[in-house]
């Protein structure tokens, strides 16, 4: 389509005095991510709805979006989608759960992964008014697949009373989302999202909110667990 006069004039001015080189693009691998507070279960979570510096996403741990709902002056080729989560306080008191590890299912995050929110929900990626990606049970089918670390746990030893047989389960429970790189959810064919094009990503539980289970060590209160989505692909940005 031919440029209008004003576009041509702006273009000329921009190429001569602008802060970036118009029409020249640079590409690089890029991840955009967005995390929200899981609290104790909502029926819907919206991601990428706030930009870095907004009240809900004040720092890079929560998002690196330049503007809300679009990639700003960059365009983006979406290649993979990864669900993720994090616990904000690394000093979590595992000792609070040690007395219950052997007897109940409420002592750590593992129960939420094997029997909680990770087993439910659906993820929607919408551009404009059209759904482009819908993934059921996204924590299973779009795992982090990012080289996730391992926590190995030994068996517990039990000293038995003389002549008595102690009944106990010996393994402490631990689970993680699927971490192997080859299990990543590929958007195939890839999806190109133009600069300043609006998109929306939501995790929905239309059959009902899923409350937290493993709350002995990790509180179910707001601020203790954040869930998120990482969009991985190639960013195209103007050359400066």
């Amino acid at each position, binding site marked *: 389509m031919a440029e209008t006069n004003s576009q041509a004039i702006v273009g000329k001015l921009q190429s001569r005095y602008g802060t970036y080189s118009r029409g020249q693009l640079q590409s690089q691998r890029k991840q955009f991510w967005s995390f929200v507070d899981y609290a104790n279960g909502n029926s819907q979570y919206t991601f990428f709805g706030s930009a870095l510096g907004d009240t809900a996403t004040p720092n*890079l741990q929560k998002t*690196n979006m330049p503007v809300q709902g679009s990639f700003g002056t960059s365009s983006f080729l979406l290649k993979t989608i990864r669900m993720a989560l994090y616990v904000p306080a690394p000093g979590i008191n595992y000792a609070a759960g040690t007395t219950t590890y052997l007897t109940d299912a409420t002592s750590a995050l593992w129960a939420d992964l094997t029997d909680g929110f990770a087993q439910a929900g659906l993820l929607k990626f919408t551009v404009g008014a059209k759904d482009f990606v819908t993934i059921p049970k996204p924590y299973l089918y779009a795992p982090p697949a990012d080289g996730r670390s391992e926590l190995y746990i030994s068996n517990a030893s039990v000293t038995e009373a003389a002549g008595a047989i102690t009944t106990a389960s010996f393994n402490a429970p631990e689970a993680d989302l699927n971490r192997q790189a080859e299990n990543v959810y590929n958007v195939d064919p890839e999806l190109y999202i133009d600069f300043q094009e609006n998109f929306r990503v939501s995790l929905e539980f239309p059959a009902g909110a899923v409350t937290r289970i493993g709350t002995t060590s990790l509180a179910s209160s707001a601020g203790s667990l954040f869930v998120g989505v990482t969009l991985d692909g190639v960013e195209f940005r103007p050359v400066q």
Partner: protein
Amino acid sequence: MASESQQITQMLAGRYGTANYKNLQVLKWQYYDYVRIAPSTGVISQKLNFFSVPQGAIDPNSGIAKTLEETNLDRNGQFTYDYVITAIRTHLQVLPKSRQNSVGALTTVANLNVGGADGSLGQPTGTYTFLEKLSGLGTMIVNFGQKRYFEVNQPFKTCPRGAGVSVKQYGGGAQATAAGVTTQRSYYYSQSQDPRDIYRTTPPLFVERDSIIDASIQFQDAYTTGNFTLPDVVAASPGSFAFVNVGLIYDGFAIVPTQ
């Protein structure tokens, strides 16, 4: 176009220099930099800077001069060669026992890496469980010049080391206790040692040798002293936290002049 002085220098270098920049060679190369994660307080630094302290200079957290084991950076904040980055790794490394903290005598404690008792890294509230949670936090930011080229969330997970020991079984150890009491549950944390998991930079990034590197891992969310203090390994010895280094490793190719 080269200035007159540059032309003269090039001519002299071509004729008498120790390197020939007209003939280039490509070598598989890693640039790496390890920094101590916490100073003597045991509180993890909110911002860990990489490739800013070259060999021979003092790591501000450990107070020890860096050797080739910690970094192969020769110049402050600059690569020695033109370099193509094809992958990024991080390494959350608990130092070997002989280099551990003298507070709490971690260099000689019997059960540093096994068991869940006092004196072990594997206690339920110990170093390994702390590092596992820490690996879910932080953002890696890499700028060359003034411009941002990499921004990676949860870098210890997303950019794992992709190498290392594969633990098959982990022991809880033994401890005399009262009858019927369960003890000695222990933990061992490891980043992925599978090379397929490392973070590949597609497309690769070419970095010129004089570009200024500004690379860091920052912990911006819920950063408080309480949340980010490494746990004591020996309960009776305050300050007996484990020495942990964090490495940032670039995989790629160096473009070096022939000699």
